[in-house]
């Protein structure tokens, strides 16, 4: 089957932004399953309620890598609530679209980020999803595509 990625996807795939790990991350989230071909791991650093740093590691196809990269660009510097409002669809739109087959299987970056934020909140003893005015968190976590297992 042929792969039909647009230029923006190919650009992010070729020069992915924010690749790496954050050794002293405030939160880490991972989604996906290597058996299906895509695993994404997001690391976040939070400063004053904002994402001061976001890095990713991804095992996966072109769409998986490009969407990871695009997501980090979209959310860097955003408040946690703003970041939680970003969905997999937001990422795909920002990339100018992804091939239909890739929409559900490789477009998981936002889910990984939401998990990292969840992890951050848990570490701080916050109880997701309710507290501290984060209805977005519940919405985003619930609406995102489920991990493919």
């Amino acid at each position, binding site marked *: 089957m042929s792969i039909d990625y647009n230029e923006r996807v190919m650009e992010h795939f070729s020069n992915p932004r924010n690749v790496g790990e954050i050794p002293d991350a405030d939160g880490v989230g991972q989604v996906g399953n290597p058996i299906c071909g895509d695993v994404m791991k997001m690391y976040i650093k939070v400063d004053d309620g904002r994402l001061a740093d976001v890095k990713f590691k991804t095992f996966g*196809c072109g769409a998986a890598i490009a969407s990871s990269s695009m997501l980090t660009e979209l959310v860097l510097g955003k408040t946690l609530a703003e970041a939680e409002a970003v969905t997999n669809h937001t990422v795909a739109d920002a990339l100018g679209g992804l091939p239909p087959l890739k929409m559900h299987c490789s477009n998981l970056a936002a889910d990984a980020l939401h998990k990292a934020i969840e992890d951050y909140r848990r570490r701080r003893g916050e109880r997701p999803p309710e507290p501290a005015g984060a209805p977005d968190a519940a919405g985003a976590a619930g609406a995102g595509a489920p991990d493919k297992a």
Partner: protein
Amino acid sequence: MRRVYLDHAATTPVDPRVAEVALECMTGNYGNPSSLHQFGRLARQAVETAREQVAGLIGAAAKEVVFLSGGTEGDNLAIKGVAAALKKRGNHIITSAIEHHAVLHMCEYLEGAGCRVTYLPVDEHGLVRLSDVEAALTKETVLVTIMLGNNEVGTIQPIADIARLTRARGIVLHTDAVQATAQVPVNVDALGVDLLTISGHKMYGPKGIGALYIRRGTRLVPQALGGGHEHKLRAGTENVPGIAALGKAAELARAELAERGRHLSALRDRFLDGIMERIPDVKLNGHPERRLPNNANLSFKYVEGEALLLNLDMRGIAVSSGSACTSGSLEPSHVLLAMGVPPEVAQGSLRFTFGRQNTDDDVDYVLQELPPVVAKLREMSPFTPPQEEGGADVH
């Protein structure tokens, strides 16, 4: 940018000597072989010459060769045709888990039509075990269909040994030789097969043409009905340019077989040695020796095949991948999975298939471009073990 085509198992360029023959049968010798006038007789001659050329390549009699549209139709006709012809004798078919989909999907279709199909497992190298074949044979078995050379990993099956089992019991044996023909010696008597499929575009001929060898006396119900073409086994006006081209391709393959084999395996081995030297945590899939001379199927741990393929494509290098992403399904290659390759490792597999026109320089270019691509993707992968030694496993 340099362009290096290493996907000859997908398709091959048409040899200019072959294209010339096809062109002549389009513009000059354009008659219908069924016509009685001299235009028809000339076209008929081209078809019958090609039949002899193809028969010559596989050690058959010309009468035993039927032309059709390609590998898929050949496999389909062989399996469906035998199942229909012998349904009174039995309804059991034996095949393997690593066949081409042209075989597997036909077998699945026949299961829906009342046949029983046994899908034999393979060992870690992709080989069917003779003991499994023997154990699967029943009084109801009418057909065994096992490929000669695998299209993904290149493993060559012990068809002659399987033939000894089927012949003793009067069971029809079919082999899909689409990848093996014109790469390794293929002789229908040495193999002991009753049916054998060939495809033009895998052997420097055009797409849309193939042949089915049908041993004399093998009963087959035709699937395409109409005029009495191809010994009434495949109706439809003959694709004369394609047929003549396939004949020429077969003639050239026969003359150049040994030389091509040497060239291909030399390229393949130069490539494999270079990769193993330069990239850690790589595994060769398929049999170490019993494999097609042009095939190298490698799993690059911790990375995914489509990402590798895209990166190579950007560097002008054309290969194919066994990852789910490139197969259009959720699962990676059914062949690698059947061989027991873990799914996450199968996701990171690439197939390199060399051709006549590839050179040492092509190999060296890939050896230069591939290691940094793998390194870059591994740097990005959450599974890559921390620097120094790559000892850990994905799972």
